[in-house]
Every structure is written in structure tokens, then in C-alpha cells.
């Protein structure tokens, strides 16, 4: 394999086919062949993750599949990361916080959204599950977050989403921090009611919404 396109296709295929063990080797060969690491990431690994996302949207892949695809993607990223030029590594990414609100420990969907947003180019800070309201605020201040993603699967914990928004208002942070929400009992009507900036029904939609609420910088990468 000595053609750049072939390498990129192989990297992409490794992600889609969940080949975590092979992807690192392909990534290393890509670097050894002299091709730019950033191209390997964006046109290889991220391309594969996007293909996997489409399969998920088509209900051919499921949550467990996407987790394994992301393992392959991260394995490749670990090889490429040291070779990415500093000006791109340090390129400002929107900082987003994600977590399951207090009282709820269902985090499968949240984990998926985190992976998708990271793939899309966001710097994700995952607070985990059963996260107290105040922890979202504290973290938002600490990292100057521009986006908070709240998740819950339970009707009894939905009110905590409103509390996060109210606390942001009390701290005069509401204009700087957008809030998007999701989860099985959540709806656009509920998002409107509590003053959230957006609601997404699934992980794919979450990426589109995030790009609308906290746009990524235009890519400066040479084509």
C-alpha cells in the first residue's frame, strides 16, 4: 500500500470495521510514508467514524458497535497525535461539558454523544453521570465552556436541567454558555419551557445542533 488514498481508505475501514488492533499499524505506516498526520486523522479516522455514524442512523450499527468504532478511532489518534503540527493541536476548539444530571445513572447515550462531538472537533469535558447541578457551573467557569450538554433518561430528574440553566443565569454566564439537552423523556417543548438553547433526539442530531450553537472555527488545513 503506497498510495495516500489507499492508506486513508484503510484507516477509514479500520474504524468502521472496529479493527482497533490494525489501525495503529496503518497509522504508523501512513506517517512513515511521509503523509501529513492531520490528513490521516480527518480524511481517514474521522471519515470512518462518520461512516459508522451513518450506519447507526440507518439502524445497521448500534451503540455497542459505535463504542468499538470509537476505540479504533482513538487508537489511531494516539499514533497521529504527536505528529500533528502544533498550530493545529493548539487550534482553539469550542469547549463543551457533557454529563448526565443528578439522580440518573443512564449514560450510554451520553457517552455516544461525547464521542460524536469529540470526533466533530469539540474539546469535551465529561463529568460522568449523576452529576450535581453545581458541578456543571463550576466546570463551565473553570474551562470557559461555550456549551453544556445535559442528558437524562428519567422524568424524575428532568428538573435538574432547568436548575443548571437557572444557575447559569444567576452567575451571569447564560449569554456565554449555550445549553443543549437530550434523553428519552426530553422534547423540544420541554427545551423551550426551561429555556434550553436546543434539544436533540439522538447523537447524530446532537452534532448538528452543537455546530449551530457553538460553531467550530473554519479549518485552516491545506487541502
Amino acid at each position: 500500500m503506497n498510495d495516500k488514498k489507499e492508506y486513508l481508505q484503510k484507516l477509514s475501514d479500520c474504524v468502521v470495521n472496529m479493527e482497533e488492533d490494525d489501525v495503529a499499524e496503518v497509522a504508523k505506516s501512513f506517517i512513515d510514508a511521509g503523509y501529513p498526520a492531520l490528513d490521516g486523522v480527518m480524511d481517514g479516522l474521522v471519515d470512518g467514524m462518520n461512516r459508522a455514524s451513518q450506519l447507526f442512523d440507518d439502524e445497521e450499527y448500534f451503540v455497542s458497535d459505535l463504542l468499538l468504532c470509537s476505540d479504533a478511532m482513538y487508537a489511531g489518534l494516539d499514533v497521529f497525535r504527536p505528529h500533528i503540527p502544533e498550530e493545529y493541536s493548539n487550534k482553539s476548539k469550542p469547549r463543551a461539558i457533557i454529563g448526565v444530571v443528578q439522580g440518573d445513572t443512564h449514560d450510554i447515550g451520553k457517552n455516544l454523544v461525547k464521542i460524536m462531538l469529540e470526533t466533530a472537533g469539540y474539546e469535551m469535558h465529561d463529568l460522568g453521570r449523576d452529576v450535581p447541578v453545581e458541578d456543571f457551573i463550576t466546570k463551565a467557569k473553570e474551562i470557559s465552556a461555550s456549551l453544556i450538554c445535559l442528558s437524562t433518561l428519567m422524568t424524575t430528574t428532568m428538573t435538574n436541567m432547568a436548575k443548571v440553566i437557572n444557575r447559569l443565569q444567576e452567575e451571569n454566564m447564560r449569554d456565554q454558555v449555550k445549553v443543549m439537552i437530550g434523553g428519552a423523556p426530553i422534547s423540544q417543548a420541554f427545551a423551550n419551557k426551561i429555556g434550553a438553547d436546543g434539544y436533540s433526539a439522538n447523537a447524530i442530531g446532537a452534532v448538528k445542533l452543537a455546530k449551530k450553537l457553538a460553531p467550530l472555527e473554519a479549518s485552516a488545513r491545506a487541502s
Partner: protein
Amino acid sequence: MEKTVNFTCNYNNAAGIDPAVIKALNLSVPDVYWNAQSMACLATAIQEENNAPFCVLPFCYTTEAENMGGLIICDDENTGPRAREFAYPTVEELARLPDIDFSQGRIHQVLEACKILNAQGKAVALELSGPLTICNNLTDISLVFRAWRKKPDLIEQIFNHLMVQSVVYAREAQKVGVDILCFADPTASIDIIGPKLAEAHAQSFLIPFTQEILPLLDENTILQLCPKIVNTLFNLELADWRQHVLAPGISYPAACLEARGQVKIVGQNCIKNMQHILRNGTIKELRLR
């Protein structure tokens, strides 16, 4: 072959008990989750409030996991018991889970509460949690999903252990007079794990569990499977329905009690849907192929 409709769960979207109900009974949290007498009192109040034909216990999905080392907190009257932290950081450790000790912990209190209610002449439905739901209370479920692909033998070993625990739990439940054994594994919903893993779940746990439970099911005890589980079985063509006609206008929960003796396994609707009236009084018996 008749297929079920894909079932959207409403009741898993709630947790905890209405604090007003707890307060009105002069009960408190975490006592209602730890004390058999308080549990029985609360379960009765909820039954009366819902106009239900039986009491439902426990009030959470964490008792099995807690007994096997899960780190469960019960501090919040709004949300109920939950695992905030992971007791087992690796899946390999789940292969060394202890047996459930039914003589202690909250699971013992749950069984005692069932005994109290049975002695009071009340019908009782006991909810048993499936392996993925139990694992979700013990470790990061992502690790289980990954291991399921890469180390399927390990997961099979874990599922086998949990299956044995569930069978023993069902036997203990029958001893204290439980009328309906309700089995659910919401984390194993086919739309989360996909058909391949759903089939593995069915073959490694659900079917062996059901076969072990069958001899227990008689005129006193019936097995109710969560409709999401039933949906999986039908999607995989592992089950059929057989219809039984009962009295017209009967609710599904009442029918589950009524059908004991002639039907062993049901699952056409959620057991918590207390007001659902069966069409033409017909309850469907699930038969594994």
C-alpha cells in the same frame, strides 16, 4: 409467526417514589429502601393509589447489584437508589462476583416485605433485573459491550453466574409467596445492543433462565417478561404466542394473576400499566420455540 410491536417504555423513565406519598405515611428515606415493614407499607399505599391488583417490589433496580458489591446510594427521595460509582473497574472482576446472600442486605428486606404482604393476603409482583442492568450498576457498561465482542467467553461466564443468581432469587421469591416474577433488562434493549448481541443475550441468559424457571411456574406463580425482552425474542424468531381467553374487560395485570395455572409466561404489555384492558379478554402466553 406473530411479532410484537416495538415497545416504548414509559415506566423506566421514572425513579424514586413521590416524596409526598412517603411523608403522608410518616415514612422516610432511606428507610423505605432498607426496612421491610416500611417497604410493605409503602408498596400497599402505591397499590391503593394505582388501584392495582397487586403490590410491586422493589422500588429500584439495584438490589441484586448491591448484594454483589455494588456501591448504591439511597439518599434522595426524588430519585431513588442508584450506583453513582463503579464498584468494579474492570470486566474481568465481574467474573469473580460473589453469590447473592439472600439472608442480608436490602434484597433480604425486599423478600421479607414480600412475606409481610403475602401474610396480609396481598398479591405481590417482584421485579428481577437482567444481567446487563445488574452490570450497569457494577461497572462502566461500555466495558461490558467491548468485552462482549472481544472476549465473548468472559461475558458468557459472567452471564452464567448472574443467571444462576436470578434463578435462586426466583426460588426465594416463590418461598415467600410472590405471585408474579417480573423479569426486565432495559440495558439489553435491542435498539441499544443490536440484534447480534441481543441473540447472544437470549442464548446465554434469557432462554436458560426461563427454562430453569419453568418448573417453578404453577397455579401460584407466573413469569412476566418485559415487552422489550419479548420484542427481542420475536425479532429473533425464538418465541410464539398462544392465546387464552379470560373474562371480558379484564386488565392486563389482573389477567396475569388470573391466568396462573394455565399460562406460565406472559409479556404482551408492561406489568406496570395497571389500567390496560385486554382486548376481548385475551391474554397471550409466550412459548419459547
